[in-house]
Protein backbone atom coordinates (compact mmCIF):
# COMPACT_ATOMS: atom_id res chain seq x y z
CA UNK A 1 0.00 0.00 0.00
CA UNK A 2 1.15 3.52 -0.71
CA UNK A 3 2.05 5.96 2.02
CA UNK A 4 1.80 9.70 2.21
CA UNK A 5 4.27 12.11 3.74
CA UNK A 6 3.22 15.72 4.32
CA UNK A 7 6.03 18.23 4.82
CA UNK A 8 4.92 21.25 6.79
CA UNK A 9 6.93 24.44 7.22
CA UNK A 10 5.83 26.77 10.01
CA UNK A 11 6.90 29.96 11.75
CA UNK A 12 8.54 27.90 14.46
CA UNK A 13 9.84 24.74 12.88
CA UNK A 14 9.14 21.93 10.42
CA UNK A 15 6.86 18.94 10.88
CA UNK A 16 6.64 15.68 8.99
CA UNK A 17 3.19 14.07 8.96
CA UNK A 18 2.86 10.51 7.73
CA UNK A 19 0.01 8.14 7.03
CA UNK A 20 -0.83 5.11 4.98
CA UNK A 21 -2.95 5.29 1.86
CA UNK A 22 -6.17 5.46 3.84
CA UNK A 23 -5.06 8.79 5.24
CA UNK A 24 -7.19 8.56 8.34
CA UNK A 25 -4.49 8.02 10.99
CA UNK A 26 -1.46 10.27 11.08
CA UNK A 27 1.85 10.40 12.85
CA UNK A 28 3.24 13.84 13.60
CA UNK A 29 7.01 14.17 13.80
CA UNK A 30 8.65 17.40 14.87
CA UNK A 31 9.36 20.15 15.42
CA UNK A 32 12.52 20.05 13.39
CA UNK A 33 14.59 23.23 13.78
CA UNK A 34 12.31 24.41 16.57
CA UNK A 35 12.11 28.18 16.86
CA UNK A 36 13.20 28.84 13.26
CA UNK A 37 11.02 29.87 10.35
CA UNK A 38 10.69 27.13 7.76
CA UNK A 39 9.48 28.84 4.63
CA UNK A 40 9.56 25.68 2.54
CA UNK A 41 10.34 21.98 2.82
CA UNK A 42 10.22 19.85 -0.30
CA UNK A 43 11.26 16.38 -1.37
CA UNK A 44 13.04 15.29 -4.50
CA UNK A 45 10.83 13.52 -7.05
CA UNK A 46 13.90 11.54 -8.07
CA UNK A 47 14.66 10.34 -4.53
CA UNK A 48 11.81 10.77 -2.05
CA UNK A 49 14.16 10.37 0.90
CA UNK A 50 16.07 13.46 -0.19
CA UNK A 51 14.46 16.52 1.38
CA UNK A 52 15.48 20.15 1.26
CA UNK A 53 14.45 22.77 3.79
CA UNK A 54 14.78 26.53 3.97
CA UNK A 55 15.43 27.51 7.59
CA UNK A 56 15.67 31.17 8.50
CA UNK A 57 15.53 33.61 11.35
CA UNK A 58 15.55 37.36 11.77
CA UNK A 59 18.45 36.89 14.16
CA UNK A 60 20.60 34.34 12.39
CA UNK A 61 19.71 34.68 8.72
CA UNK A 62 19.43 31.82 6.27
CA UNK A 63 20.39 28.19 6.82
CA UNK A 64 19.77 25.46 4.28
CA UNK A 65 19.13 21.91 5.39
CA UNK A 66 19.19 18.60 3.56
CA UNK A 67 18.02 15.18 4.63
CA UNK A 68 18.89 11.88 3.01
CA UNK A 69 16.57 9.80 5.16
CA UNK A 70 13.15 11.44 4.76
CA UNK A 71 13.67 13.89 7.57
CA UNK A 72 14.95 11.58 10.29
CA UNK A 73 18.29 13.39 10.27
CA UNK A 74 19.40 16.63 8.66
CA UNK A 75 22.63 18.30 7.71
CA UNK A 76 23.22 21.96 7.07
CA UNK A 77 24.43 22.68 3.54
CA UNK A 78 25.44 25.86 1.76
CA UNK A 79 23.74 29.11 2.70
CA UNK A 80 25.70 31.52 0.55
CA UNK A 81 23.50 33.20 -2.06
CA UNK A 82 25.59 35.78 -3.89
CA UNK A 83 24.04 37.70 -6.74
CA UNK A 84 25.89 37.37 -10.00
CA UNK A 85 28.15 40.30 -10.81
CA UNK A 86 27.40 43.80 -9.58
CA UNK A 87 23.74 43.43 -8.63
CA UNK A 88 22.58 47.01 -9.20
CA UNK A 89 19.19 48.08 -7.94
CA UNK A 90 15.47 47.45 -8.11
CA UNK A 91 12.75 49.86 -7.07
CA UNK A 92 11.95 50.29 -3.42
CA UNK A 93 8.45 50.87 -2.06
CA UNK A 94 8.80 54.62 -2.53
CA UNK A 95 10.04 54.26 -6.09
CA UNK A 96 13.68 55.00 -5.32
CA UNK A 97 16.46 52.63 -6.42
CA UNK A 98 17.31 50.01 -3.81
CA UNK A 99 20.24 47.58 -3.90
CA UNK A 100 19.42 43.91 -4.38
CA UNK A 101 19.83 42.32 -0.96
CA UNK A 102 19.48 38.67 -0.07
CA UNK A 103 16.90 38.15 2.67
CA UNK A 104 15.72 34.52 2.59
CA UNK A 105 14.82 31.51 0.49
CA UNK A 106 11.09 31.31 -0.14
CA UNK A 107 10.85 28.30 -2.41
CA UNK A 108 12.84 25.15 -3.12
CA UNK A 109 12.14 23.14 -6.24
CA UNK A 110 14.11 19.91 -6.56
CA UNK A 111 14.86 18.69 -10.06
CA UNK A 112 12.47 16.13 -11.47
CA UNK A 113 15.34 13.81 -12.37
CA UNK A 114 18.43 14.54 -10.25
CA UNK A 115 18.31 14.55 -6.43
CA UNK A 116 21.37 16.77 -6.25
CA UNK A 117 19.92 19.52 -8.40
CA UNK A 118 17.58 21.96 -6.72
CA UNK A 119 16.35 25.44 -7.54
CA UNK A 120 15.83 28.18 -4.97
CA UNK A 121 13.64 31.25 -5.25
CA UNK A 122 14.84 34.02 -3.02
CA UNK A 123 14.06 37.49 -1.72
CA UNK A 124 15.14 39.92 -3.21
CA UNK A 125 13.78 38.16 -6.25
CA UNK A 126 16.27 35.90 -7.97
CA UNK A 127 16.58 32.29 -9.01
CA UNK A 128 19.48 30.14 -7.84
CA UNK A 129 20.44 26.56 -8.65
CA UNK A 130 22.57 24.00 -6.89
CA UNK A 131 23.85 20.90 -8.64
CA UNK A 132 25.68 19.48 -5.63
CA UNK A 133 22.88 18.80 -3.23
CA UNK A 134 22.69 22.31 -1.89
CA UNK A 135 26.35 22.76 -0.98
CA UNK A 136 26.87 25.63 -3.42
CA UNK A 137 24.44 27.93 -5.17
CA UNK A 138 24.79 29.91 -8.38
CA UNK A 139 22.40 32.56 -9.56
CA UNK A 140 20.59 32.04 -12.86
CA UNK A 141 20.97 35.73 -13.40
CA UNK A 142 19.26 35.99 -16.77
CA UNK A 143 16.01 36.43 -14.87
CA UNK A 144 17.04 39.29 -12.61
CA UNK A 145 18.94 40.90 -15.47
CA UNK A 146 15.81 41.04 -17.62
CA UNK A 147 15.49 44.60 -18.89
CA UNK A 148 12.56 45.18 -16.55
CA UNK A 149 14.44 43.94 -13.46
CA UNK A 150 15.44 47.35 -12.19
CA UNK A 151 11.77 48.38 -12.19
CA UNK A 152 10.51 45.50 -10.03
CA UNK A 153 9.00 46.59 -6.73
CA UNK A 154 8.33 44.52 -3.62
CA UNK A 155 4.89 43.61 -2.43
CA UNK A 156 4.04 43.85 1.23
CA UNK A 157 5.87 40.59 1.89
CA UNK A 158 9.03 41.68 0.12
CA UNK A 159 10.31 41.24 -3.43
CA UNK A 160 10.16 37.47 -3.36
CA UNK A 161 10.46 34.75 -5.97
CA UNK A 162 7.98 32.38 -4.40
CA UNK A 163 6.99 29.88 -7.08
CA UNK A 164 9.05 27.70 -9.41
CA UNK A 165 7.41 25.25 -11.82
CA UNK A 166 9.49 22.82 -13.87
CA UNK A 167 7.97 21.59 -17.12
CA UNK A 168 8.05 17.78 -16.94
CA UNK A 169 8.06 17.48 -20.72
CA UNK A 170 10.69 20.10 -21.50
CA UNK A 171 13.77 20.49 -19.33
CA UNK A 172 14.48 23.87 -20.90
CA UNK A 173 11.19 25.40 -19.77
CA UNK A 174 10.74 26.84 -16.27
CA UNK A 175 8.05 29.14 -14.93
CA UNK A 176 8.55 31.42 -11.94
CA UNK A 177 6.38 33.95 -10.15
CA UNK A 178 7.51 37.02 -8.27
CA UNK A 179 5.62 39.36 -5.97
CA UNK A 180 5.19 41.98 -7.22
CA UNK A 181 6.81 41.64 -10.63
CA UNK A 182 4.63 38.92 -12.17
CA UNK A 183 5.20 35.61 -13.90
CA UNK A 184 8.14 34.76 -16.15
CA UNK A 185 9.10 31.85 -18.41
CA UNK A 186 12.35 30.58 -19.79
CA UNK A 187 12.54 28.26 -22.79
CA UNK A 188 16.31 27.95 -22.82
CA UNK A 189 17.07 26.52 -19.41
CA UNK A 190 17.24 29.86 -17.67
CA UNK A 191 19.49 31.90 -19.94
CA UNK A 192 16.74 34.27 -21.03
CA UNK A 193 13.30 35.00 -19.64
CA UNK A 194 10.04 36.38 -20.93
CA UNK A 195 7.42 38.12 -18.79
CA UNK A 196 4.17 36.19 -19.21
CA UNK A 197 1.61 38.63 -17.88
CA UNK A 198 -0.51 39.50 -20.92
CA UNK A 199 -4.14 39.46 -19.93
CA UNK A 200 -3.52 40.25 -16.28
CA UNK A 201 -5.16 43.36 -14.96
CA UNK A 202 -4.04 44.86 -11.65
CA UNK A 203 -5.74 48.02 -10.48
CA UNK A 204 -3.05 48.62 -7.87
CA UNK A 205 -0.39 49.62 -10.37
CA UNK A 206 -0.23 52.75 -12.54
CA UNK A 207 -0.78 50.84 -15.78
CA UNK A 208 -3.16 47.97 -14.91
CA UNK A 209 -2.06 45.93 -17.93
CA UNK A 210 1.68 46.60 -17.68
CA UNK A 211 4.22 44.05 -18.88
CA UNK A 212 5.45 43.58 -15.29
CA UNK A 213 4.42 44.73 -11.83
CA UNK A 214 1.58 42.30 -11.14
CA UNK A 215 1.32 40.70 -7.73
CA UNK A 216 1.05 37.05 -8.71
CA UNK A 217 0.45 34.98 -5.60
CA UNK A 218 0.79 31.49 -7.01
CA UNK A 219 0.80 29.55 -10.26
CA UNK A 220 0.17 25.85 -10.75
CA UNK A 221 0.11 23.28 -13.53
CA UNK A 222 -0.83 19.66 -14.08
CA UNK A 223 2.07 17.54 -15.17
CA UNK A 224 0.12 16.00 -18.04
CA UNK A 225 -0.56 19.43 -19.56
CA UNK A 226 2.31 21.71 -18.59
CA UNK A 227 1.25 24.39 -21.06
CA UNK A 228 -1.94 25.00 -19.12
CA UNK A 229 -1.31 27.27 -16.16
CA UNK A 230 -3.57 28.42 -13.36
CA UNK A 231 -2.90 31.54 -11.32
CA UNK A 232 -4.13 33.04 -8.10
CA UNK A 233 -3.29 36.70 -8.41
CA UNK A 234 -3.57 39.34 -5.68
CA UNK A 235 -7.08 39.70 -7.03
CA UNK A 236 -8.38 37.42 -9.81
CA UNK A 237 -8.03 33.74 -10.61
CA UNK A 238 -6.60 33.28 -14.10
CA UNK A 239 -5.77 30.53 -16.57
CA UNK A 240 -3.52 30.28 -19.58
CA UNK A 241 -3.72 27.63 -22.29
CA UNK A 242 -0.53 28.68 -24.04
CA UNK A 243 2.23 28.51 -21.49
CA UNK A 244 1.49 31.95 -20.14
CA UNK A 245 1.52 33.82 -23.43
CA UNK A 246 -1.94 35.10 -22.54
CA UNK A 247 -4.29 34.78 -19.60
CA UNK A 248 -8.04 34.89 -19.13
CA UNK A 249 -9.90 35.42 -15.91
CA UNK A 250 -11.77 32.41 -14.50
CA UNK A 251 -12.88 33.84 -11.16
CA UNK A 252 -16.51 33.18 -12.15
CA UNK A 253 -18.82 32.75 -9.18
CA UNK A 254 -16.19 32.83 -6.43
CA UNK A 255 -17.36 34.86 -3.42
CA UNK A 256 -14.10 36.80 -3.64
CA UNK A 257 -11.24 36.26 -6.06
CA UNK A 258 -8.54 37.36 -3.64
CA UNK A 259 -6.46 34.55 -2.19
CA UNK A 260 -3.06 32.97 -2.08
CA UNK A 261 -2.78 29.25 -3.01
CA UNK A 262 -4.03 27.45 -6.08
CA UNK A 263 -3.50 23.81 -6.99
CA UNK A 264 -4.60 21.19 -9.50
CA UNK A 265 -6.12 17.75 -8.87
CA UNK A 266 -3.57 14.99 -9.45
CA UNK A 267 -5.68 13.10 -12.00
CA UNK A 268 -8.13 15.68 -13.34
CA UNK A 269 -6.24 18.48 -15.08
CA UNK A 270 -9.33 20.68 -15.19
CA UNK A 271 -10.10 20.34 -11.48
CA UNK A 272 -8.56 23.16 -9.50
CA UNK A 273 -8.72 24.43 -5.94
CA UNK A 274 -8.49 27.87 -4.35
CA UNK A 275 -9.20 29.29 -0.90
CA UNK A 276 -10.96 32.66 -1.26
CA UNK A 277 -9.89 35.29 1.24
CA UNK A 278 -12.04 38.32 1.96
CA UNK A 279 -9.69 41.00 0.66
CA UNK A 280 -6.17 42.37 0.62
CA UNK A 281 -7.11 44.42 3.67
CA UNK A 282 -8.74 41.58 5.59
CA UNK A 283 -6.73 38.40 5.27
CA UNK A 284 -9.34 35.96 6.48
CA UNK A 285 -12.16 33.96 4.91
CA UNK A 286 -15.42 35.75 4.10
CA UNK A 287 -18.13 35.44 6.75
CA UNK A 288 -15.86 33.48 9.08
CA UNK A 289 -16.33 30.37 6.91
CA UNK A 290 -13.27 28.44 5.84
CA UNK A 291 -14.13 27.17 2.38
CA UNK A 292 -12.05 25.59 -0.32
CA UNK A 293 -13.57 26.22 -3.73
CA UNK A 294 -13.26 23.60 -6.46
CA UNK A 295 -13.82 23.99 -10.15
CA UNK A 296 -14.16 20.84 -12.19
CA UNK A 297 -14.01 22.58 -15.52
CA UNK A 298 -10.91 24.72 -15.27
CA UNK A 299 -12.47 27.74 -13.66
CA UNK A 300 -15.48 30.03 -13.82
CA UNK A 301 -17.84 27.53 -12.19
CA UNK A 302 -16.87 26.95 -8.58
CA UNK A 303 -18.40 24.94 -5.75
CA UNK A 304 -17.69 25.47 -2.07
CA UNK A 305 -16.19 22.55 -0.16
CA UNK A 306 -17.14 22.87 3.48
CA UNK A 307 -17.68 19.40 4.94
CA UNK A 308 -15.37 19.17 7.92
CA UNK A 309 -14.11 22.76 7.72
CA UNK A 310 -15.12 25.40 10.29
CA UNK A 311 -18.13 27.36 9.08
CA UNK A 312 -18.34 30.02 11.73
CA UNK A 313 -15.91 32.26 13.59
CA UNK A 314 -12.93 31.20 11.51
CA UNK A 315 -10.46 33.98 10.73
CA UNK A 316 -7.30 32.19 9.65
CA UNK A 317 -5.45 32.70 6.40
CA UNK A 318 -4.02 30.13 4.01
CA UNK A 319 -0.68 31.26 2.60
CA UNK A 320 0.48 30.80 -0.98
CA UNK A 321 2.68 27.75 -0.42
CA UNK A 322 0.36 26.04 2.02
CA UNK A 323 -1.68 23.81 -0.33
CA UNK A 324 -0.69 20.58 -2.05
CA UNK A 325 -2.16 17.39 -3.45
CA UNK A 326 -1.10 13.75 -3.31
CA UNK A 327 -1.34 11.38 -6.27
CA UNK A 328 -3.19 8.44 -4.77
CA UNK A 329 -6.13 7.09 -6.76
CA UNK A 330 -8.53 9.20 -4.76
CA UNK A 331 -6.59 12.43 -4.88
CA UNK A 332 -5.75 13.87 -1.47
CA UNK A 333 -5.83 17.61 -0.96
CA UNK A 334 -4.04 19.32 1.91
CA UNK A 335 -3.72 22.83 3.23
CA UNK A 336 -2.35 24.56 6.29
CA UNK A 337 -3.55 27.71 8.01
CA UNK A 338 -2.05 30.58 9.91
CA UNK A 339 -3.94 29.18 12.89
CA UNK A 340 -1.77 26.07 12.85
CA UNK A 341 -4.23 23.57 11.45
CA UNK A 342 -3.37 21.22 8.62
CA UNK A 343 -6.51 19.97 6.91
CA UNK A 344 -6.63 16.94 4.66
CA UNK A 345 -9.19 15.52 2.29
CA UNK A 346 -8.76 11.96 1.05
CA UNK A 347 -11.52 12.34 -1.55
CA UNK A 348 -10.61 15.31 -3.69
CA UNK A 349 -12.09 17.84 -1.32
CA UNK A 350 -15.52 16.34 -0.63
CA UNK A 351 -14.80 15.94 3.09
CA UNK A 352 -12.06 17.33 5.31
CA UNK A 353 -10.52 16.67 8.68
CA UNK A 354 -7.64 18.20 10.57
CA UNK A 355 -4.46 16.15 10.77
CA UNK A 356 -3.17 18.54 13.43
CA UNK A 357 -4.77 21.62 14.92
CA UNK A 358 -2.24 23.45 17.01
CA UNK A 359 0.97 23.91 15.08
CA UNK A 360 2.61 27.32 14.73
CA UNK A 361 1.35 29.36 11.76
CA UNK A 362 1.77 27.22 8.64
CA UNK A 363 3.91 28.69 5.88
CA UNK A 364 4.09 25.76 3.48
CA UNK A 365 2.66 22.32 2.80
CA UNK A 366 4.12 19.78 0.40
CA UNK A 367 3.07 16.18 -0.12
CA UNK A 368 5.00 13.11 -1.16
CA UNK A 369 3.16 10.04 -2.37
CA UNK A 370 5.32 7.03 -1.60
CA UNK A 371 5.13 3.63 -3.23
Amino acid sequence: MSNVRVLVGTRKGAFVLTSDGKRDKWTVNGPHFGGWELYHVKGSPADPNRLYASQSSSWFGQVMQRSNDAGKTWEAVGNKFEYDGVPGTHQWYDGTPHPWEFARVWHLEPSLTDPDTVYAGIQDAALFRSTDGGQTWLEMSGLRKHHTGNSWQPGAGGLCLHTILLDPTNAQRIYVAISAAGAFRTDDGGATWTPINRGLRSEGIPNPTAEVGHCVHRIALHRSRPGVLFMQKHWDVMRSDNGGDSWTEVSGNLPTDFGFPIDVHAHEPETIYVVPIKSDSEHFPPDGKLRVFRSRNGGNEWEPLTNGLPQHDCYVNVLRAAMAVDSLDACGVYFGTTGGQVYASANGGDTWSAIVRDLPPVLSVEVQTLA
Partner: protein
Amino acid sequence: MIRVTLPFHLQTLARVPDEVMVDVPGLPTQRSVLDALEAAYPVLRGTIRDHATCKRRPYLRFFACEQDLSHDLPDAPLPDAVVAGTEPFMVVGAMAGG
Protein backbone atom coordinates in the same frame (compact mmCIF):
# COMPACT_ATOMS: atom_id res chain seq x y z
CA MET B 1 42.41 29.94 23.41
CA ILE B 2 39.44 32.25 23.41
CA ARG B 3 36.19 31.29 25.08
CA VAL B 4 33.13 32.05 22.98
CA THR B 5 29.56 31.67 24.18
CA LEU B 6 26.77 31.17 21.68
CA PRO B 7 23.00 31.68 21.84
CA PHE B 8 20.73 28.66 21.98
CA HIS B 9 19.90 28.45 18.28
CA LEU B 10 23.54 28.57 17.21
CA GLN B 11 24.42 25.91 19.79
CA THR B 12 21.86 23.58 18.28
CA LEU B 13 22.87 24.47 14.74
CA ALA B 14 26.56 23.82 15.40
CA ARG B 15 25.79 20.97 17.82
CA VAL B 16 27.98 22.42 20.54
CA PRO B 17 27.50 23.40 24.20
CA ASP B 18 26.91 27.00 25.19
CA GLU B 19 30.63 27.74 25.27
CA VAL B 20 33.34 26.71 22.84
CA MET B 21 37.08 27.34 22.74
CA VAL B 22 38.75 28.65 19.61
CA ASP B 23 42.40 29.02 18.81
CA VAL B 24 43.01 32.50 17.46
CA PRO B 25 46.35 33.19 15.78
CA GLY B 26 47.73 36.65 16.47
CA LEU B 27 45.91 39.44 18.25
CA PRO B 28 42.37 38.45 19.22
CA THR B 29 39.83 40.84 17.71
CA GLN B 30 36.17 40.45 16.83
CA ARG B 31 37.15 39.63 13.29
CA SER B 32 39.87 37.12 14.12
CA VAL B 33 37.75 35.39 16.77
CA LEU B 34 34.80 35.09 14.40
CA ASP B 35 37.08 33.94 11.59
CA ALA B 36 38.40 31.20 13.88
CA LEU B 37 34.92 30.32 15.09
CA GLU B 38 33.60 29.98 11.55
CA ALA B 39 36.64 27.96 10.52
CA ALA B 40 36.01 25.53 13.36
CA TYR B 41 32.24 25.44 12.79
CA PRO B 42 31.52 26.24 9.12
CA VAL B 43 27.77 25.89 9.67
CA LEU B 44 27.92 29.21 11.53
CA ARG B 45 29.04 31.09 8.42
CA GLY B 46 26.43 33.66 7.54
CA THR B 47 24.56 33.33 10.83
CA ILE B 48 26.57 35.84 12.88
CA ARG B 49 27.98 38.00 10.09
CA ASP B 50 26.52 38.62 6.68
CA HIS B 51 28.23 36.52 4.02
CA ALA B 52 28.78 39.38 1.62
CA THR B 53 29.57 42.31 3.90
CA CYS B 54 30.94 40.48 6.97
CA LYS B 55 28.90 42.92 9.07
CA ARG B 56 27.33 41.75 12.32
CA ARG B 57 23.76 40.68 11.78
CA PRO B 58 21.46 43.38 13.13
CA TYR B 59 19.81 41.32 15.86
CA LEU B 60 23.04 39.98 17.33
CA ARG B 61 25.24 41.62 19.93
CA PHE B 62 28.78 41.03 21.13
CA PHE B 63 29.34 41.34 24.88
CA ALA B 64 32.40 40.80 27.06
CA CYS B 65 33.43 41.87 30.54
CA GLU B 66 30.02 43.47 31.06
CA GLN B 67 30.57 45.73 28.06
CA ASP B 68 28.71 45.92 24.75
CA LEU B 69 31.37 45.57 22.07
CA SER B 70 28.86 45.41 19.24
CA HIS B 71 29.78 48.79 17.83
CA ASP B 72 33.54 48.44 18.24
CA LEU B 73 35.60 48.22 15.08
CA PRO B 74 36.06 44.60 13.98
CA ASP B 75 39.84 44.86 14.26
CA ALA B 76 39.91 46.48 17.69
CA PRO B 77 41.69 44.37 20.30
CA LEU B 78 39.42 42.46 22.67
CA PRO B 79 39.61 43.08 26.44
CA ASP B 80 42.58 41.56 28.25
CA ALA B 81 40.35 39.22 30.24
CA VAL B 82 39.00 37.74 27.02
CA VAL B 83 42.51 37.35 25.62
CA ALA B 84 43.60 35.71 28.88
CA GLY B 85 40.65 33.34 28.78
CA THR B 86 39.20 34.42 32.10
CA GLU B 87 36.12 35.96 30.45
CA PRO B 88 34.22 34.77 27.39
CA PHE B 89 33.45 36.64 24.20
CA MET B 90 29.69 36.43 24.12
CA VAL B 91 27.57 36.26 20.98
CA VAL B 92 24.11 37.22 22.13
CA GLY B 93 20.75 37.29 20.39
CA ALA B 94 19.17 40.69 20.87
CA MET B 95 16.14 40.61 23.11
CA ALA B 96 12.90 40.77 21.21
CA GLY B 97 9.51 39.41 21.75
CA GLY B 98 6.13 40.30 23.05
